[in-house]
């Protein structure tokens, strides 16, 4: 019986008026002057380095609270089954067990308003939470899980999108009418006319497999909810703020009663932006036992609880003019959302937009269909869907260039947008160094002398891309606030709520404050990772850290400086606007001998007549109602070699040029580039969760392949500074702007090494590459016999 599918939601946005620069921005524009800075731009080692290299850093698993219990979760073994009975009496009777909870014990609480904490009448994916135990120790908790008796009735499951969309397919959760969760189409500009008037239309299909975020630090939650009005949660996260907003209403608390402590976060890679069932379960167990509880995901459990990228299938169509002008894209994506409908559709929209910003298109159409299956609920991976979308588009352009007898780098340069361009979805690019990036890598890699002249199985590929630095959306605000406390001893402490999951954002904030106050960042302290101590910060995602929190830090430092100028101006007898804070001193702009030390100034400000203790505060909220003010741009060239016998791909070198606005800390910027090239290479070539009927076949870090040290290419870094008018000191982002472009460049290079044909599958694992090697060999043989 045919079922009704979800209504298609379609929007149309006409071509924006490109004749004027965006007036609503103008009041907000900062200086584009490339001023001479003292602290920013120096290679600054991480301030938390000594703690991290000496084993002193505390991660959630290191937290040991008095009376703490061990929590364990019983997970579904079936992809789809009815729960006929669930008996926990034997587990409850086991000595040492302090609580056993299931769906019937927890009331109306659900996860993010979207999925149950525990399955009640049916399970819809392998790994779904059914019950949980809190016990004195891990062994007892594990034993208790074994004593829980469940009777299942296995139900037919749909394990891929094709089957899920078939007529008469079993329903994933019985709650929706069909397995199509969402179907969105967005049209920008003039799509149909662009295709109708195109001289060439090229079309390709691209499929990306299932991934895992594979953070170094596993999923873990330590909770103390033993008193009813105070919930403390230690957990790695990208956003304590959004966690507070999810957890407080669920447990009848105010935001301030929920304390999230994220002292350190062991990697996130877009996978820690949300609360997950294990957080709720640890909280429920703690509430039930009135004792602290720790839940830690063990080896293969880590794969079951992960929410990363699911299977994604794309169809890309590109319209071109004879002269190589790219006029339109039509992208269709089919995305496996897994058993819980998620924001995957939105991520697909972001990915499509993000990868078309770089071209001055006439039309853009994107359709995103999110499908429910009995797979694990999917979310995001490093680079999101932007990575795979870029890999498809850049391959399409590199292969198209060959077909129309153009050099791909010329084609990209010709089509690259420039500063001041207004994009189809209304974005205005206030700074853009895209063409400079292309020229830089072209020269550095000696592209003109090498492209097309390499031997067989040796390839070069070029990619370009762009990334939004921050994207205001979910709330009316996108606020980050920062406090700067100037200690009596002249030591400055920065208080920030932004999580540092490795990207080095705490050091970035210190550097920005140090620049404003003219002090040495190495003498500073950063207090972060505890919502009871730090001001509001929406979090570290969407590449918003440097631009949002960075601007807040700058504002807070300016506020502190303003307070310090009161005493300094009087003492030095100069106008306060003529004071310079630099090199640990405060002096008059035109009379540098009129100076005093920073520490001396702080001391005298406090011990003077006024007795002023200096504390700066600042916040920043994007001037837009929605969206982004600043975008990074980048170009990369990758060189690869394919082993025709094994199908293995070796990445030899990657040339990276990235317009990041301004490099606050080049050492950290290089680290960001390294990590993202690594992760792009990992996803393009290796990473794939393999399943059979929903069962994980490679749930370990040995079998789920990622690059090891010996596989890493050489990287050539070029940081391009365009000094963005919105960014703090002109900085934009270097968070995920690299990974997206690396993906495109590496994919295009593999395609070039294999005769220049589009490779429609990701990861480009050896067994897939070998199919293309065989094609190349057939083509070569045919060429020889024809000759």
């Amino acid at each position: 019986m045919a079922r009704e599918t979800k209504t298609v939601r379609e929007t149309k946005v006409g071509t924006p008026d490109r004749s004027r620069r965006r007036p609503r921005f103008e009041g907000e524009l900062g200086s584009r002057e490339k001023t001479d800075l003292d602290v920013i731009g120096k290679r600054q080692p991480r301030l938390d380095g000594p703690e991290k290299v000496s084993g002193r850093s505390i991660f959630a698993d290191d937290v040991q609270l008095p009376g703490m219990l061990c929590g364990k979760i019983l997970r579904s073994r079936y992809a789809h089954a009815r729960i006929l009975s669930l008996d926990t009496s034997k587990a409850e009777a086991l000595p040492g067990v302090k609580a056993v909870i299931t769906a019937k014990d927890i009331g109306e609480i659900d996860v993010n308003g979207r999925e149950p904490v525990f399955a009640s009448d049916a399970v819809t994916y392998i790994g779904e939470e059914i019950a949980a135990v809190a016990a004195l120790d891990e062994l007892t908790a594990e034993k208790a899980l074994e004593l829980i008796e469940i009777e299942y009735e296995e139900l037919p499951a749909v394990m891929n999108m094709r089957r899920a969309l078939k007529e008469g397919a079993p329903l994933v959760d019985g709650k929706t009418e069909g397995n199509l969760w969402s179907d969105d189409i967005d049209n920008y500009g003039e799509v149909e006319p662009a295709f109708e008037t195109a001289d060439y239309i090229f079309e390709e299909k691209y499929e990306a497999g299932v991934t895992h975020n594979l953070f170094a630090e596993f999923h873990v939650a330590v909770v103390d909810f033993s008193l009813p009005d105070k919930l403390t949660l230690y957990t790695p996260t990208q956003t304590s703020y959004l966690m507070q907003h999810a957890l407080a209403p669920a447990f009848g608390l105010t935001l301030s009663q929920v304390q999230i402590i994220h002292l350190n976060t062991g990697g996130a890679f877009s996978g820690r932006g949300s609360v997950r069932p294990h957080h709720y379960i640890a909280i429920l167990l703690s509430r039930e036992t009135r004792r602290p509880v720790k839940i830690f995901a063990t080896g293969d459990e880590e794969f079951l609880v992960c929410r990363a990228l699911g299977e994604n299938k794309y169809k890309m169509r590109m319209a071109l003019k004879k002269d190589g002008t790219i006029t339109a894209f039509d992208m269709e994506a089919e995305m496996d959302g897994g058993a819980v409908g998620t924001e995957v559709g939105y991520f697909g929209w972001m990915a499509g937009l993000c990868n078309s910003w770089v071209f001055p298109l006439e039309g853009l159409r994107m359709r995103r269909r999110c499908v429910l299956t009995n797979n694990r609920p999917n979310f995001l991976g490093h680079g999101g869907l932007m990575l795979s979308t870029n890999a498809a588009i850049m391959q399409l352009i590199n292969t198209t260039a060959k077909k129309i007898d153009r050099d791909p780098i010329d084609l990209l340069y010709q089509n690259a947008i420039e500063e001041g361009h207004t994009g189809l979805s209304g974005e205005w690019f206030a700074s853009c160094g895209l063409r400079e990036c292309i020229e830089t890598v072209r020269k550095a890699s000696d592209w003109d002398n090498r492209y097309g002249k390499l031997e067989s199985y040796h390839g070069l590929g070029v990619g370009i891309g762009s990334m939004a630095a921050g994207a205001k959306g979910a709330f009316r605000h996108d606020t980050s606030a920062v406090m700067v406390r100037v200690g009596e001893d002249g030591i400055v402490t920065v208080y920030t709520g932004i999580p540092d999951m490795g990207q080095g954002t705490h050091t970035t904030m210190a550097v920005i404050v140090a620049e404003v106050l003219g002090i040495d960042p190495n003498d500073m302290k950063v207090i972060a990772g505890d919502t009871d101590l730090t001001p509001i910060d929406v979090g570290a995602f969407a590449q918003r850290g440097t631009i949002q929190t960075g601007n807040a830090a700058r504002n807070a430092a300016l506020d502190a400086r303003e307070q310090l100028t009161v005493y300094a101006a009087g003492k030095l007898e100069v106008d306060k606007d003529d004071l310079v804070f630099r090199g640990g001193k405060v002096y008059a702009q035109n009379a540098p001998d009129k100076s005093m030390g920073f520490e001396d100034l702080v001391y005298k400000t406090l011990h003077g007549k006024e007795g002023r203790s200096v504390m700066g505060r600042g916040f920043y909220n994007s001037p837009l109602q929605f969206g982004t003010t600043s975008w990074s741009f980048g170009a990369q060239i990758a060189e690869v070699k394919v082993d025709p016998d094994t199908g293995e791909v070796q990445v030899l070198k990657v040339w990276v040029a990235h317009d990041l606005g301004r490099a606050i800390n080049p050492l950290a910027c290089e680290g960001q580039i390294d990590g993202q090239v690594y992760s792009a290479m990992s996803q393009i070539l290796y990473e794939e969760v393999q399943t059979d009927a929903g069962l994980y076949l490679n749930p370990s870090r040995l079998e789920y392949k990622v690059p090891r040290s010996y596989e890493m290419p050489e990287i050539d870094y070029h940081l391009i500074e365009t000094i963005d008018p919105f960014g703090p000191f002109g900085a934009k982002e270097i968070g995920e702007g690299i990974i997206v472009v690396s993906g495109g460049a590496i994919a295009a290079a593999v395609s070039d090494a294999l005769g220049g044909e589009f490779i429609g599958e990701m990861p480009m694992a050896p067994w897939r590459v070998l199919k293309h090697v065989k094609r190349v060999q057939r083509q070569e043989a045919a060429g020889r016999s024809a000759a």
Partner: protein
Amino acid sequence: MAKHLVTLTVNGDTYDLVVSDNQTLLDVIRDEVNLKGTKRGCTTGSCGVCCINNAKGEAVLSCLTHALEWDGEEITTIEGLEADGELDAMQKAFIEYGAVQCGFCTPGVIMSAKAIINAHPEPTKEQINAGLAGVNCRCTGHIKVKEAIRNDHRIRELGRGTRD
């Protein structure tokens, strides 16, 4: 679960411990000796975050070995590298060369790096790669880690973590 008395020397301090059959060396370091620098990761020997050094200065994955087998042995954990109130040259090199990001795997990576240097004081690229093969760092792409290891000897000579 049978219990056994085990004498273990960790970073020069000797502990008399009661150890169960099922406890790994990692469990004992973290829970009995109460040193938390050695991290708990996959506990199946695939991620490298629990790496320590044995008495010979070799890398050992502490999650893969029973604590019982270490009776009478000496080990070094990340906490044992400091001397005279100063970080070890390798630790300084990791900071200076930006080889630390999230920091979760860092203790394990540094203990792997120490094992490389213990075996080859001025290691070749191949020796570094072989010594890091068990490391699953997800942030750094291994690149600055290798730079730090290559320059560890220079920092040893300088005696402090400064860049030229």
